[in-house]
């Protein structure tokens, strides 16, 4: 594999073999994955072989080894030229994403009440291996309403306020959801998980705004220095995973019929305009609506904890997915084209003035929410004019160390002690689970954000630091 440094923040993976386009990795030299331990650059090259791919197989600065697609990968295929959709390009956790809420409270005012708020959150946020959800679904019919209506249905049922929908991608409901494409097994997995965090790298954090870089955008988003916030990182839980598993197998069986072969089974795909392609997008949209309701309900649980123990409300800043495929119109080679844009561990970042932005955000661009690691920082970024990679940016810090290695090097008890020494309250599920998510297992999120800004993918709006962590 030949890699050329084009600028300090842009590396090119030259075309070879079956690659239809080059790979473009937006990263600094420091963040560029080490091929000896991480195969993500090979995965960038593999994605470049997908039928109908246009421009390049892109990777964001937080790129790391996934399966099929790299995590941090962006690829767009031309819908009108037999371009494909690949469930692996979205990932198992369909519409995994981040929701940020802001309290009308400064960190000093929260300090004496933080323990009570954290205890309430620790008690009311279902997480980890045990079953439980904020909004149990009694039957498949009720779940169908969630899959069709997304956050709009949750708000209609009294779980939230109308303004929540304005500040959620797609107004809280992804169109063209087809719950009929969701298997009974996926439904069964989803029934008891509406409003649950899960495990792995998912979390709910109480944070404070540490630094504001763009005062105007921060004001529009509803953020100010020292303000208390709540960040929720989770997705579509078992339902989304089952949809991905089911659809990868459907596509694998269909590929021969379409004359498609791929270098990795997890890249199984079918033309967007095929029966299988449309079925996947309908199921994916339904799982996306599930994920939005999931984050909506966890946001409601946080609102109750803050109302009871801190005496304040929480306003939604934004809710954005970082695992999704969307049909969008972009200009490529001077021509407007209908593209299926896969973002696997990457966040859409519409620029100021984009017609899909809600009116109040139109002047400043779309907020993108970048969760950091425990004990470091998270960022609020914004889309920029002339954004690259179909207006995409990073999605997090990006792992550099396997879970296996993290557990070998870090003791969960010591990590919790260290975090609490720094004033960060922790409500976890297991010591090993905590150790797996140690900050040292990740790239430095500040480096990732520097590279994203340097590469012209986004601009900084605010930096948030953790006050308390509820770990999945």
């Amino acid at each position, binding site marked *: 594999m030949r890699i050329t440094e084009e600028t300090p923040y842009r590396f090119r993976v030259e075309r070879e073999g079956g690659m239809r386009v080059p790979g473009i990795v937006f990263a600094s030299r420091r963040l560029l994955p080490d091929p000896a331990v991480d195969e993500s650059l090979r995965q960038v090259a593999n994605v470049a072989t997908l039928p109908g791919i246009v421009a390049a197989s892109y990777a964001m600065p937080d790129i790391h080894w996934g399966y099929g697609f790299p995590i941090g990968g962006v690829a767009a295929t031309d819908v009108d030229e037999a371009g494909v959709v690949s469930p692996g390009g979205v990932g198992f956790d369909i519409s995994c994403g981040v929701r940020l809420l802001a309290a009308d409270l400064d960190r000093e005012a929260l300090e004496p009440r933080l323990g009570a708020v954290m205890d309430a959150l620790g008690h009311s946020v279902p997480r980890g291996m045990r079953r439980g959800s904020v909004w149990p679904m009694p039957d498949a019919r009720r779940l169908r309403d969630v899959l069709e209506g997304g956050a709009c249905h949750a708000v209609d049922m009294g779980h939230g306020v109308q303004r929540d929908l304005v500040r959620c991608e797609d107004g809280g409901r992804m169109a063209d959801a087809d719950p009929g494409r969701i298997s009974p097994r996926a439904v*069964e997995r989803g029934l008891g998980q509406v409003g649950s965090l899960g495990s792995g790298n998912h979390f709910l954090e109480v944070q404070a705004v540490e630094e504001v870089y763009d005062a105007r955008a921060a004001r529009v988003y509803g953020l100010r220095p020292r303000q208390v916030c709540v960040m929720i990182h989770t997705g579509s839980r078992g339902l989304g995973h*089952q949809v991905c598993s089911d659809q990868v197998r459907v596509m694998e069986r269909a590929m021969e019929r379409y004359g498609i072969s791929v270098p990795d089974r997890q890249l199984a795909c079918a033309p967007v305009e095929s029966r299988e392609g449309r079925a996947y997008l309908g199921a994916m949209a339904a799982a996306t609506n599930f994920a939005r309701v999931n984050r909506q309900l966890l946001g409601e649980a946080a609102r109750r904890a803050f109302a009871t123990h801190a005496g304040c409300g929480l306003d939604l800043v934004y809710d954005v997915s970082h695992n999704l495929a969307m049909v969008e119109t972009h200009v490529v080679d001077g021509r407007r084209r209908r593209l299926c844009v896969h973002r696997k561990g990457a966040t859409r970042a519409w620029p100021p003035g984009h017609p899909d932005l809600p009116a109040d955000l139109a002047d400043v661009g779309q907020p993108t929410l970048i969760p950091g690691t425990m004990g470091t920082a998270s960022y609020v970024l914004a889309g920029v004019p002339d954004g690259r990679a179909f207006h995409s940016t990073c999605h997090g810090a990006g792992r550099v160390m*396997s879970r296996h290695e993290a557990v070998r090097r870090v003791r969960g008890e010591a990590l919790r002690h260290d975090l609490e020494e720094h004033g960060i309250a922790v409500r976890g599920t297991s010591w090993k689970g905590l150790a797996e998510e140690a900050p040292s297992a990740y790239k430095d999120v500040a480096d990732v954000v520097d590279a994203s800004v340097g590469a012209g993918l986004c601009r900084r709006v605010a930096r948030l630091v953790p006050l308390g962590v509820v770990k999945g």
Partner: protein
Amino acid sequence: MPRTDAGHRTTAHTADLTVQAWAPTRERCVAHAVTGVVESVVGTGPPPATTTVERDLEGATDADLLAAVIDEVVYLLETRGLLPAATEVLATPTGLRARFSMVDADALEPVGAVPKAVSLHRLRCERGPEGWWCTVTIDV
């Protein structure tokens, strides 16, 4: 020389969990992979089983059969709150029969991230000169 030993281990994958297993037979190899997955969640030495669940599973290849058995473990954990303390795998004319000796997962203390799906990336289950060997990457 054919192997007589059987076992499993987890290996590094940046974001998730990769389990490798080996055994003289395909069925024992798959059973060991299940044990590797379960140990990653709740450690070794689970309490005695309280119930048994049996499933007949199909797949076009041995690798797909391995994926089907682990998929079943994920599904039973999420929907019934059960984890296999021990797993026996038998060959059937159309695939594999998995006999899971189950414990209530709510009674166990997790020690690692919970498995959510089986990736097809580098999924292998094959017979070599020494016996059977498999590798599977699990999304957690």
